[in-house]
Structure formats: C-alpha cells, structure tokens
C-alpha cells in the first residue's frame, strides 16, 4: 500500500516500535480471572429520577439550571441573564430555534452568529444548544455542531438552551449513543462540560472562572 510505504519512509521508528510491542507481548501476563466482570449497575447507583438528579448536580457543579415551560419563558429567562451581563457582543450558534429565541430575548443586541466564524475574545456571552444533558454528573454534551469549539470556552458566560427529552441518565448512555451515531466522525470535537471553568492551584482554594466561563447557565425547557 502506498500509504504504508510513505509512513515507513517518513517515520522509520513506527515499525520498530510496533515490533518491540509485539515482541514484548509474546510473554503473557498471568491474570487471575475475576469472579464476574463488573457491571455499570454495580459501580454507580442507577438514576431513578434524571431531572431531579440533574438539578442537584448542577448545584454541586456551581452552574445554574432554570426550568422553563415554553419558548416564551425561555426567551424571558435568556433576556434576564443577558441583561445581567456587561454590554457587548454575544456569540450565538446559528440555528433556527436559537434565532427565534435570541431575537425575542435580545432585540438590538450585537450578535455574531457561528456561521460567521469563531467567537471574538471580547464577546460577553455565548448561546448554544447541546447534544445531550447528563443527569448523573450534571453535565452538558456539546460538539463542534454547537457553534464550534470556542463557543463554550471563550466568553465569560455560556448559556445552553436545552429541552427535557435531551436529558439522558448517565455518561454510559451518552457515550454509547455518541459511539453508535458516530458523533465523533461527524464532528472534530466534543466536550462533556460539568460546570464553569475553575482552578484550585493556589493552596487548593477553589476559584471559579479560570480560563473559561465564570458562569454556565442551562435553560431547560419542559416542552419542545
């Protein structure tokens, strides 16, 4: 195969390392077979009430979760959050549902849409959708489709607009689905986000808002 030949000439160590690995593995390790392989149900408590768990975990993760009844209520909550922020451009994932909500919530505000490229450093907030919400860890799963990579990390405030059917019980479900749907072939990037950016590098003291957002807000709509 020409590709292998090229790899060989540009990277002579490749074959040597593989040979060393194969030679090394010829002697097997002695392993006592475990009585039974562990199942997820043994390791983690099954999630009984995903919504309740998600809300609890959001509190633990120092993120905000607002339950809204419909898109009008969501727009109202979004307007409140945006008003609490300093003046300045906001970055929004270019999606029809977000266009509707953002136009209701922030008429006249300077907006950069994800279809126009990456967010600017000066943007005050980002509004995106999520691929899924994970109850077990109070996380949101975003991909490059949710406005790109910088959307969830450049601005000091990240607002996620999601609906209840997007809520999955645990990480295993979310990752299993991503695997089946080949999410990472369709997107160059995905991220499980569990709270605002933070550090405890000085004297183990928690500082909220390190290199990424200080605030992570989930607007969770009960109806589509």
């Amino acid at each position: 195969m020409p590709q292998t030949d090229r790899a060989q000439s540009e990277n002579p160590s490749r074959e040597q390392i593989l040979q060393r690995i194969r030679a090394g593995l010829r002697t097997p390790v002695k392993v006592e077979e475990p009585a039974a392989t562990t199942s997820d149900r043994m390791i983690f408590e099954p999630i009984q009430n995903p919504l309740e768990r998600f809300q609890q975990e959001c509190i633990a993760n120092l993120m905000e979760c607002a339950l809204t009844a419909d898109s009008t209520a969501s727009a109202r909550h979004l307007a409140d959050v945006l008003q609490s922020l300093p003046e300045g451009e906001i970055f929004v994932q270019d999606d029809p549902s977000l266009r509707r909500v953002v136009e209701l919530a922030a008429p006249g505000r300077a907006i950069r849409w994800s279809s126009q490229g990456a967010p600017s450093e000066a943007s005050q907030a980002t509004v995106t959708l999520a691929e899924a919400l994970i109850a077990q860890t109070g996380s949101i799963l975003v991909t490059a489709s949710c406005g790109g990579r910088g959307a969830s990390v450049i601005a000091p405030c990240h607002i996620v607009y999601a609906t209840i059917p997007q809520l999955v019980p645990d990480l295993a479900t979310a990752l299993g689905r991503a695997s089946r749907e080949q999410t990472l072939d369709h997107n160059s990037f995905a991220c499980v986000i569990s709270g605002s950016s933070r550090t405890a590098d000085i004297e183990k003291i928690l500082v909220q808002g390190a290199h990424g957002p200080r605030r992570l807000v989930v607007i969770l709509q009960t109806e589509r």
Partner: protein
Amino acid sequence: MSATAAQRFLQDAAVKSADLMHREVIRRGMDSYDAAHLKGRARIKDWEAARQRCQEIKREAINHLDRYLLQFEEKVAARGGHVFWAANSEEACAYVKNLATRLNVKTVVKSKSMVTEEIHLGTALEKAGIKVWETDFGEFIVQLREEGPYHIVTPAMHLLRGQIATLFQEKLGQKIESDDPAYLMAVARRVLREAFFSAEMGISGANFLVADAGVIAISTNEGNGRLCTSIPRIHVVVTGIEKVIPRLEDLAVLWPVLATSGTGQGITTYGTLIGGARQSGEADGPEEFHVVLVDNGRSQLLADPEQREVLHCIRCGACLNICPVFRHVGGHTYGTTYPGPIGSVLTPHLNGIKEFKHLSYASSLCGACTSVCPVKIDLHHHLLQNRRNATEAGATKASERLMFRAWRHAMLHPRIYALGGWSMRKALRIAYGLGLQGSILDPMRVWNRYRSPVPLPAESFRARWRRDRAAN
C-alpha cells in the same frame, strides 16, 4: 564532580523533611485533598468494583497495545490527521520542532502534559527560538519560577499565595495589588489570553487515546486545554503509547474514577474529545492535527510481564498524595519527572536502574499507594522487584555487598550477632555519656540527628528472652 542522583536525593530529603514551613504547606494541601477524595469516593456506589473495571480496561488495552494503537492511527489518518511514532525524546522533540519551523510558528501555547515534561519539549522549542507559554495556572507559575512541576496534578502546591503574588510582581512587569487567589488567577488569565490569541501552535497531552472512536480525551478544569486546542491554527498532541483505551464507553467509568482520584471531583469540568482538525462547516478549530506517540522506554517495560501493569497508570496522583515519604520530602526532591511511588517505580525503567535504584528505597513499603491506585497497580511490590532487579544487575556498590555479607554471616552465627549487639550498646552508652548523640561520632547519627536519641536498652533481647522464659 557533581553529586549522583542518590546523593542529591538524600541531601534534599534531609533539608525538606526538616523544613517545617514546607511540611505545613503540604499537610494543608493534602488534608483538603483527603477530604475531597473521600467525599468523591462516596459518590461511587462500589469503589472496589470501579477500580476493578478500570484495571480490566487498561489491562485489555496494554495487552493488545499494537492492535489498539493501529486502530487509533487508522481512524485519525482517515480524517486527515498525522500520527508520528517517536522512539525517544529526541525524535519526539525533533518532530515538533521541525513542524513548528516549517509552519513558521513563533509562539506555542501548551496545556498540561507530563509527557512533554518527560521529553523536555519546552526546552527544545525555546532553543529553536520559539516562545512557549505554559497555560495551566500551576504550570504557568512554576514556569515563571524556572522549576519543574512539584506534583503531577497540582504543580504549584508547594507555594503560598504571597510567594505567587511576589513572583507575578517580579516577572510579569505589572503591579500586583492583592494575594487573593481569584485576583492572581485573573491576572494570569489576562496575560495568557493574549498568548492564546497570538499563538500559531497549541500543544496538549492526552489523558486517553480512544481506539474505536479515533479521538484523544483531555481532562481539564481550567479550560486552558480547550483554548490551546481551539484557537491556534495547529494542534499537536504529545502523549505516551500506553494511554490508549479500547472503547469510547470506557470513559463512562474512567472519567469519574480519574476525577475522584485526582482531585475528589465527581467529574472533571471539561472532558474534551478531539478527533482531528476543523471539518468543513465547523465554526472554528485548527487547520492541522498531529499526534506524537512517544515510546521512550515504554515498550521495554511492556516486555517485563511482572511489571507490565505499571503502564496502566492514568497519572491521577493519588499515590503521591497518600505517600508518607512524598508528604515529607516533597515532589522536587525526587529529581525526576514523575515523583512519588509511581515515579519511583517508573523512573528506573525510563532513565536507568543504576542511577535511580535509590528511589526503590524511598519507601517504607507500607502499601498505602497500592491501596489507593485506581487501576490497582501493585506499586509497593514493584518497588521490591526493582530492588531485586538492581541487585541482580550488579548495580550495587562493593561496600553495600560487603555489609550484607557481614550481616548474613552474623544472622547465621548467633555468637557473632550477640557480640555485635553488645558492642553497639557499649558504643552508644559511651557516645551518649559524652553527650555526642546526633554528632558525627554517634553510630546512630542518621536517626539521632533530627530526633530525640534512641533509648538504650538495659539488656539485649536475647537476655530478656531467657529471663522471661525462666520466669514463666
């Protein structure tokens, strides 16, 4: 002549363990880790089952390492990414340096990666005239201090906020008005934001290489790892060949376990998965994606079935945190990239048993490290095996061999043993009588120097044994 690694270790260990301020800082740091870690463990229903699962995942990966690495490579290459296999530090550094030169890179932003510390990538790039910014807050601090990370997870845990405020004042050329951690973080954020937006290349490590999905997984709390891999036009991943795991779903256990063992969190704030450069239609992301797979002695360790499982390590730092030796001598004393129990096991394999065999003795063999390891590496037994291997390889000194021969002889001849005990008690009685305890003339100087003198028994153990038996 410069001191050997073993002599430096002994000197630094003596200084650090007598430095009460240092001990207080580390004690406070470790106390808060302990509390968080226990709380984190309570969130997992069956911690032992979780450890067992992680061990199984890593064992499967390591024992089919060629297959999973090739699967990972194929997926990455299919999307246009580049995978480079580096046999050693030189090859890895040369690849990144040549790439940077070819693509006209002036500035690099780095997220935390112990492998880049191991191969000294930062130094190699700086030598080529490239500015390198460490962007993890702790790494940024130790980079300004021109020292290596103190700990593999919290690189600046040996410093107090006041020291960091002074450091920033001196090195960043701006007025520092407070030593509040939030304020200091905000200062670093502003400085590093400029770096993120001017750098042409971002370098990250990888906590895991996911074979079936062909992606790298990075865990970060600060978000610097996200910025490094989002903004610059080139993304280079530098990581060890042992980081591969079979399936994306494996992260459902590995992520919570890594976070719990690393910091006590239920999950790290950002669990990022990246499979390549920006795809068409995506808003942003780098134009090029390179993965450098570093061997650097790992395949040799793989060939040792007794210690192969050392490659299961996920670099959580739990064994450092619990180790009574680490807690007293601190991270820098080890003089290695990887400190603590895992470093003491690994370093002789990576950097030579002759120079680093002393680390196998920097342990009381209490087994605390083994008890907390989330992938169940039998750390303290591997330290014992390293001691044996060093002796078998003839890496011991003639004086040491002579001493052990004398000891063996005494153990086999009770009269000689008794004579030895008697003369030691005599010598100590004289030394103590002259007030020489702890001095250079004290046979127990190693112990008595920093402690109240070892009490002198009135009689030998054998005499007491005889007396007690007679009394019964």
